[in-house]
């Protein structure tokens, strides 16, 4: 009996031990699973305005840099109007992504207006336009195009009296840029014709009864898409085109824009910091200079414009 009792006591002790260790194990396991799942998959929701090759290019560089890291990308490519952009942002918030990555000023402002709880990382944002919308959850890569340089280079190719600036009043960045151009052109005694478009197809109609010496396209996505429609018109009428966003196949004479590769590199640095747990407000936005100057010599010659030697030496790249 004693032995039996003793055995029973031992058994109970063993049972208790097993139960204890089991519970510890379970706790440990659940912790472990939770831990590993936390480290495993992160989802980045991406908003790329459709039809703008520049943003696709930047995104391509970012994907390449983040290759091998365990990240899911949930990509939205809405048409670049306010409603479509907001809808895309809402979808990503509802999907509960970990980070929202936005391209361009329009998409970024649309996302910030939805006040997401997730951190927002933006790329290719025109710095003065974002000033009013900054929040604690947002950080990213900004730029500032020196409009003076564009006017100066255009002026060195052709005498300018009237220039047309293509913009979309719904895209705030382009509104800011129009004002900068007007300020700069007053100094050069050039009159500025505001070419306001709300859809890419409008531009051709507007241009048919307006006379300008040069055209400038702002960073508006709509303007950038419209650029592809007026290529022949510009060449036939010998109107040099400058653009603040590149669009190589539409062959603007001058493009001055933030380097897609640098923008991507800077964005990846910020993304990596946030992925490793830093809060957006601790990560500084980046506004360092990284402009690229693309000069299309082929079109310049076709239009029989002056070829300033300075443009040849200063251009980051020349298209023949």
């Amino acid at each position, binding site marked *: 009996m004693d032995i039996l009792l003793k055995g029973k006591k031992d058994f109970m002790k063993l049972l208790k031990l097993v139960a204890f260790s089991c519970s510890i194990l379970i706790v440990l396991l659940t912790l472990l699973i939770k831990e590993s799942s936390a480290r495993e998959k992160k989802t980045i929701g991406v908003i790329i305005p459709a039809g703008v090759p520049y943003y696709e290019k930047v995104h391509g560089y970012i994907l390449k840099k983040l290759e091998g890291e365990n990240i899911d990308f949930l990509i939205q490519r809405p048409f670049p109007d306010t409603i479509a952009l907001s809808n895309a942002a809402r979808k990503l918030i509802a999907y509960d992504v970990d980070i929202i990555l936005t391209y361009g000023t329009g998409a970024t402002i649309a996302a910030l207006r939805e006040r997401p709880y997730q951190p927002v990382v933006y790329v290719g944002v025109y710095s003065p336009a974002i000033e009013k919308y900054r929040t604690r959850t947002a950080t990213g890569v900004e*730029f*500032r*195009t*020196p409009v*003076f*340089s564009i006017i*100066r280079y255009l002026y060195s190719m052709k005498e300018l009296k009237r220039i047309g600036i293509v913009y979309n009043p719904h895209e705030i960045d382009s509104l800011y840029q129009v004002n900068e151009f007007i300020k*700069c052109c007053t*100094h*050069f005694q050039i009159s500025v014709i505001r070419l306001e478009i709300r859809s890419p197809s409008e531009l051709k109609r507007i241009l048919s009864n307006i006379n300008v010496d040069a055209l400038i396209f702002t960073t508006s996505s709509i303007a950038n898409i419209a650029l592809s429609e007026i290529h022949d018109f510009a060449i036939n009428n010998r109107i040099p085109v400058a653009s603040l966003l590149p669009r190589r196949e539409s062959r603007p004479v001058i493009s*001055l824009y933030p380097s897609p590769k640098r923008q991507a590199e800077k964005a990846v640095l910020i993304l990596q910091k946030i992925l490793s747990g830093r809060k957006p407000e601790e990560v500084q936005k980046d*506004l*360092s*200079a*990284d*402009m*690229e*100057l693309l000069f299309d010599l082929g079109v310049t010659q076709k239009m029989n414009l002056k070829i300033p030697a*300075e443009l040849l*030496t*200063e251009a*980051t790249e020349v298209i023949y």
Partner: protein
Amino acid sequence: MIRLFLILLTIISSFSLPLHAQERKSEILIGLIPEENIFRQMDRYRPLGEYLTKRLNIKVRFTILSRYGDIIDRFKARGLDGAFFGAFTGVLAMERLGVEPLVRPVNLDGTSTAEGYIFVRSDSEIKSLKEMKGKTIAFVDRATATGYIFAIAFLKEHGIDNPHRYFREYYFTGSHDSALLSVLDGRADIGVAKSTIIKKRFKKEPFMEKEITIIARSVPLPDVTLCLSKGIDPSLREKIKKILLEMDRDPEGRIVLQKLEASRFISSSKEDFIPVYNLIKKAGIDLKTYRYR
């Protein structure tokens, strides 16, 4: 027809030039380092050559030393008798070729020196040295005091011992204008270049001045200085010096000076280059081993 023949002669003789340069002193060949459109520069200097030729009775000719390659080697290879050097190239030529400074022109605004500028765009976040970390900087060339060496000395003075690591990126633009444009276009955050070239540009395009903010300046350094090779006969040397120094008192000379865009020539000596030597020392550069190409 005669001109064609002359062209042929020039082509043929130009190949044999280095061989004969030593023997004949019937001609004085002076190098110019390109500072602007070289055709314009030649137009500025040509009357000076004609004036000296007339006064000395020896042919004085100018030749453009294109920056391509090594200026010191080019000086030797072309058998030059002298050149208008900049602050750093002047020091380098004194050390390596033994040339001696003779005179330098005074600009129309009364200056005969230039400063180095470190500048940014006016709308930049950079207000002082401490915001420069991690940014992009555009220098002119390793062989310029105002476009590189002064900036390195400045950074070292402020405790930045490895300037090339302090910035995210640095590059050389090849010309002072280009360094200015790099910053204006937003291709670099910070630029380093010579004050005279920047001021000239501001005068031509006044709007630029508002776009640029200067963060730091160097002490005044001798700008363009005529240095002559040791091999020149001392009496000839004195004669050249005398003619140049007295040019502004001669009506014909004044016209030549006007074309050169200078008010007069003033005497120059090795002492004028002491600030340059100081900068070089501060920048930690050893002139004997410095590789600038």
